[in-house]
């Protein structure tokens, strides 16, 4: 039986956010916006959902006088991402 795909990650924008964060130590909001091409509002909503689930941590601060929001993947998020990729592979193998 195929494992259930994590509904939180099985959405295009949230998966893109987590994938970006999986490849870096940290990234700020503007970088995520630049890379995904999403609007600030939508990106902000999805970041909040991932943070509420404990998949990412969000740090709001300033660099000089400029406000900056930095996001990082948590160990829980990292584990969920690994499990999601593993499950995807099973789906692909099963589909062949």
């Amino acid at each position: 039986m195929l494992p259930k795909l994590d509904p939180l990650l099985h959405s295009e924008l949230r998966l893109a956010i987590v994938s970006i964060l999986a490849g870096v130590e940290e990234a700020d909001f503007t970088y995520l916006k630049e890379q995904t091409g999403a609007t600030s509002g939508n990106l902000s909503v999805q970041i909040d959902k991932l943070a509420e689930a404990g998949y990412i941590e969000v740090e709001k601060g300033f660099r000089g006088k400029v406000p900056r929001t930095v996001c990082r993947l948590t160990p829980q998020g990292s584990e969920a991402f690994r499990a999601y990729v593993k499950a995807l592979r099973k789906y692909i193998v099963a589909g062949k």
Partner: protein
Amino acid sequence: MENTIEQNREMTAEESLSLITETLNNSRKEITRRSGKYYILWGALLTFFSLVIYVLWKLTDQEAWNNLWFAMPVIGFLLARLMSRKDTETHVQNDVSRITQGIWSAFGIFACTVAVFTIAYSYVSDGALDLGRTIRAMVSVASLTAEIVLLFGLAESICGVALKNWAMKIAGFVTGIGGLAIYYITGAAEEQLFIFTFAGLVLVATGLIVKYQYK
């Protein structure tokens, strides 16, 4: 990312995996592209300092102009800080960017320590500070030029390995080995400064290649 990800639609397993692969690759490319401007900065400084010191040395016959080298890391560090501040809008860091920063910092510390050590040794062994003798010790006896250009080439090649970038790997090899060749071919000490001019130009070229490779 080429396409705008705005919808929160569900994807097939293949689409999801392809999105993950594309995103991870884009992050690596972006970090490599961003390192390009620092290569251009340090390459331009190296070229500038080597040519200025060469001209001053040649015109005045004073080897002490080599002390100007110590101003280069200070100016470079300040300019790099200024450039990194302009990056406040988008910030991203991963292991690779931290490793490459570490490699170049280690190179800077090695090069400065060897230079300071040679000066200190010359001072202690002579019992007096003779700049001419000190510089001769740095350039001729300790083969400082050869050591630094080899370290430089090695640092650049290792960065290429960390960033999985062939242009950097080759440029590092060309700088290290090419620099050594110039060292052995040139006779007069001041002409050995062209090794650093050469290294600087290779660094600028690497930076430009990296910057436009991932544009």
